């Protein structure tokens, strides 16, 4: 290995310039629009990497959970008891309180129930997490277009709302978690049906919180309120009535008279495993939901 000569240096610098320009060009193309050639490349790479990730998940998943069981069994048991108690409380609350009680009519109750069970779900497993140093909270799930998963579908777990599909490849899909800073979810407070927008803070693990601002600035959420998903037009990207989280604290801003609620998500995003993608919702219950929402407000 001889030390680089001056001439070598000069041409290396030119190569560097070219490569930097190439990278910047890719960034410009990708940032410019939705239908960029980069998306084609993304799905090609996704098709190749997807099976690799699923394979690693199959190997690492059990080892991972065994390791967790050994390291903090006591803590987990305490967590489990607390969660079970909370789960029972929330289930009763969900069935009796909030939207259902407030609407009060049997038709609405049935519509809601039909809608809650009328989702056509596709089960999937989380096979890879985006690293913290990428600053976006995304995961890969092992269901793709062959399973009927498309972009902008709702992803939920047994605990509540997880996020939405941002890109579906053949055998895998990328899910943007609701705690990502780019995520905005319409939320409905179960106590008074007020609507708000819940934004993620991009935080990790157990510190992850959503910040909910109500659309009507005169209403103030109360600590302990449940937040359910409001639902988008046609259930895309979010279907209605999925539990998101509970209000932990409320910060009022005296200047513009608005209140922001800090919402603790029901889902533990650092321990995501089995999730479901809503690939179809019953059309009739959608209509019922739409009219119900209209005459409710």
């Amino acid at each position, binding site marked *: 290995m001889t*030390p*680089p000569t001056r001439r070598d240096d000069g041409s*290396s610098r030119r*190569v*560097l310039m070219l*490569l*930097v320009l*190439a*990278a*910047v060009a*890719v*960034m*410009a*193309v*990708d*940032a410019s629009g939705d239908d960029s050639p*980069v998306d084609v*490349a*993304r799905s*090609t*790479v*996704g098709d190749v*990497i*997807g099976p*690799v*990730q699923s*394979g*690693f*998940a199959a*190997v*690492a*998943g059990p*080892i*991972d959970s065994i390791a967790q069981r050994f390291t903090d069994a006591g803590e987990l048991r305490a967590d489990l008891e607390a969660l079970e108690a909370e789960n029972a409380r929330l289930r009763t609350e969900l069935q009796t309180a909030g939207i259902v009680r407030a609407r009060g009519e049997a038709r609405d109750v049935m519509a809601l129930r039909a809608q809650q069970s009328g989702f056509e779900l596709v089960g999937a497993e989380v096979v*890879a*997490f*985006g*690293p*913290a*140093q*990428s*600053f*976006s*909270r*995304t*995961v*890969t799930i092992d269901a793709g277009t062959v399973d009927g998963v498309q972009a902008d579908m709702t992803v939920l777990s047994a605990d509540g709302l997880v996020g939405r599909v*941002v*890109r579906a*490849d053949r055998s*895998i899909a*990328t*899910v*943007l978690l609701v705690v*990502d*800073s*780019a995520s905005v979810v319409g939320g409905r407070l179960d106590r008074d049906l007020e609507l708000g927008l819940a934004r993620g803070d*991009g935080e*990790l*693990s157990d510190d992850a919180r959503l910040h909910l601002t109500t659309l009507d600035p005169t209403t103030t959420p109360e600590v302990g309120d449940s937040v359910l998903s409001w639902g988008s037009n046609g259930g895309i990207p979010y279907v209605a009535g999925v539990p998101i989280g509970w209000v932990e604290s409320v910060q009022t801003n005296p200047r513009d008279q608005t209140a922001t609620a800090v919402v603790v998500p029901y889902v533990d995003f650092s321990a995501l495993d089995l999730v479901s993608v809503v690939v179809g919702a019953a059309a009739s219950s959608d209509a019922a939901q739409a009219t119900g929402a209209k005459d409710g407000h």
Partner: protein
Amino acid sequence: MPALRTAVTVVLVVLAVSLQVGLLSYVSVGGVVPDLVLLVVVGVALVHGPRHAAVLGLLAGLVLDLAPPADHTAGRWALSLVIVGYLSGMVRGEARTGAVAAVAAVAASVFVGASVFGLSGLVVGDPGVSVPRVLEVLPMQVLLDVAVAVVVLPVVFKLSRAPQPADRWARA
């Protein structure tokens, strides 16, 4: 020889990307995953010099940008790894003088790479990127990558210098 060299580096990068986005998300520390691909680029730079490593950096970075579940603007890792490859290739003479110098070179490379990746996110306006958040992740990233480099770099050296008999680095 160049064909062999290219083949070896391609295999290394494919392996590194698969491990980084597949297996290593299970061994993250505080959510931070070792930047295996960056370490491979640094390793190749220390063996083959800046030009080779910068080209490799662009290609490896692009794959890393496109591999799911990445959702940032594509090209950010590519830009970062081009610069990392070039810079670590430029200091390869100094980095070879001893273990401390090598560790310093790796730490500096990770620092530069992560900073370029983070700052480019600020420039193109990717959500979630902020200076405090970059600074929050950076120390763990440097520590973790240096620790992993102790294992990974000798492997990279060995594989990329396989045609040559003298192998100081495999023992380092």
